[in-house]
């Protein structure tokens, strides 16, 4: 056996993992996690997975589109709040389901969410009305955030706003959204968010069975987004996208409209985030401004960065690893969590720009080969549009 063949053999397990990465992820999410975790931990895993949607979207737009969005929380929040509005109205409609709605019924405002009654809002605002119907809510979650994202991105990229500026704009949007939600307490629940709902179309969300069902729905949807992402990247559209990231002006000279491509991918990422937000509300029973603002939005970027900004599957692992670490720290030594995540930001950016996925690649190809195949994570990524 030649040395080369031997080396190839020693790489075999890594090659296997690489080839079947999606299958392995599916087995992990659909079989290993649900079978090995008790109900409470499974709920946590489901919560993490709903952030995974954002991370997958960020890989698409950041890793392949060169657009760093520091405002994915906006779209996550839109999805989360729309779902919570529907659930809250359902809770308010059957006054028996919770004690506080009974209270508002007592005040003669049946059908009105409790926090509105507390803030002496007497009539349901018109933009709450359509959220009585599931037939409106779900399409709204799928369409509105994506549409908002598309318009925002298209308008800005049309004007050739640079990548750094766009990041700051998304950052400002995340800030605005949190400020408005907290400020308009009577309509949005303010700093407490929208909470205290138990049923989704009659299904009790607190039961273990409902939790397991919700977990599976989330996991399947997440796998679907990864598959859609893969499909987009493998298509011609994905090729153009990478070309735009690396040399936007050349793509423009070739007759493409980079703004359209970038806006499309940005809205796909927003759609993913909104789905994640909706699943979050369903499982955690909460829509909160603390998941909308600047801090959570940037935290979502680190999920993708840790997993590997060029790897859709890596993003899911990144989310799981970082979120698990967060829970671990907050349960054991809270004061070190910020040190940990702060260092994580620095270390990943400085020493491992390709994230866990690039580590994997190194193991698979051996150090030397990986160097030559190095993906343009560094310099080329930024020169795209100036």
């Amino acid at each position, binding site marked *: 056996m030649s040395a080369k063949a031997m080396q190839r053999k020693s790489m075999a397990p890594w090659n296997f993992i690489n080839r079947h990465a999606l299958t392995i992820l599916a087995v992990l999410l659909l079989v290993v996690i649900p079978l090995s975790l008790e109900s409470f931990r499974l709920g946590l895993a489901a919560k993490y997975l709903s952030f995974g949607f954002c991370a997958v979207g960020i890989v698409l737009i*950041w890793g392949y589109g060169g657009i*760093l969005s*520091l405002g994915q929380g906006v779209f996550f929040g839109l999805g989360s709040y729309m779902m919570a509005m529907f659930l809250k109205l359902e809770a308010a409609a059957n006054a028996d389901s919770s004690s506080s709605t009974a209270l508002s019924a007592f005040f003669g405002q049946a059908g009105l969410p409790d926090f509105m009654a507390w803030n002496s809002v007497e009539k349901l605002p018109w933009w709450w009305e359509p959220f009585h119907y599931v037939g409106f809510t779900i399409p709204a979650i799928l369409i509105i955030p994506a549409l908002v994202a598309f318009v925002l991105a298209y*308008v*800005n990229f049309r*004007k*050739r*706003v*640079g*990548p*750094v*500026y766009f*990041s*700051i*704009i998304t*950052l*400002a*949007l995340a*800030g*605005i959204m949190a*400020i*408005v939600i*907290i*400020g*308009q307490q009577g309509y949005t629940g303010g700093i407490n968010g929208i909470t205290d709902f138990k049923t989704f179309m009659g299904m009790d969300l607190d039961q273990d069975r409902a939790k397991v069902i919700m977990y599976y729905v989330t996991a399947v949807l997440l796998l679907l987004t990864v598959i859609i992402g893969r499909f987009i990247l493998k298509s011609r559209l994905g090729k153009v996208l990478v070309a735009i990231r690396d040399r936007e002006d050349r793509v423009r000279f070739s007759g493409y409209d980079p703004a359209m491509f970038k806006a499309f991918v940005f809205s796909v990422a927003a759609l993913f985030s909104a789905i994640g937000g909706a699943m979050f509300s369903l499982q955690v029973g909460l829509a909160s401004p603390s998941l909308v603002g*600047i*801090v959570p939005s*940037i935290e979502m*970027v*680190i999920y993708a*960065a840790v997993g590997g900004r060029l790897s859709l599957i890596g993003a899911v692992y990144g989310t799981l690893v970082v979120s698990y670490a967060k829970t671990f720290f907050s349960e054991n030594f809270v*004061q*070190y969590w*910020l*040190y940990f*995540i*702060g*260092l*994580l*930001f*620095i270390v*990943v*950016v*400085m020493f491992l*720009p390709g994230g866990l996925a690039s580590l994997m690649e190194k193991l698979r190809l051996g150090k030397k080969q990986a160097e030559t195949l190095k993906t343009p994570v*560094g*310099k080329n*990524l*930024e020169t795209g549009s*100036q």
Partner: protein
Amino acid sequence: MNFDMLAMQAFTGLSVFTILMLMALGLAIVFGLMGVINMAHGELMAMGAYTTYGTAILFEHYFPNFMGVYFLIGIVLAFCVTFAFGYVLERGLIRFLYQRPLDTMLATWGLSLILQQTYRQFISPKEVEVPTVSWLQGAWQVTDTLSFPLSRIFIIGLAIVTSASVYFLLFKTRWGLRIRAVTQNRTISGAVGINTERVDAFTFALGCGLAGIAGSSFTMLASTGPVTGQSYIVDTFIVVVFGGVENLLGTIASAFIMGQMQSWFEYFMSGSMARASILLLVIIVLYFRPNGLFASKVRR
């Protein structure tokens, strides 16, 4: 609305303007001249504020007779501490990331989280306040109904002095010439014998030092807590971006506009809505002028 109220509103606007200007000057240098996005800028302001707080405690213990001047020394110390920190930061972290502005954002964000926790753990999880020096207490009584707080007047003066010195440094000194040269053309600057790495480090440190001065002067208006910096950072970025990077005068003008808007908007609507509508307005303006309101028209 009578004259007094108008004057009061204008003064509030002026005060907010100088505060924004102090905050934005440092960032404008770091972001505008160097293209580095320092998300830890707010935490550097907090560092300046904490330095002033430390100075106050030191004076209370050892030189209680000189409490009157501690604040001036505190400002100088704040500048020195943040300048040194900025220098180390540039050498240790930022210089490896010059080619990757988006990554710099993430790395400095990580740094800001670490700094926050450091303040919380080693200084105080609660907000701290510094004693106001005696000659800054009270107000300047213009008429019976109109009075301007002395501390705010002091900040206005400080902002003028600071921006004048920055202007002098950038446009009238050898160092300023080097900084401008490196900004305009790094390669040629290196070729004519400017040590570009040293200029980078100095410029970055200068920007950080200015953040320290800003933070130090804020201690007169508000208390300082571990997350104080984070609440400043978005506003600061918006001022710089709105004014057009690479243009210090633009930054000052944009700080003026934002200051007046903030003061007037808050007069007509609730604080949160005022902030939100200003940010929205800025995004709209950026749509029409993507490089900022006062972008210099240069070909690149």
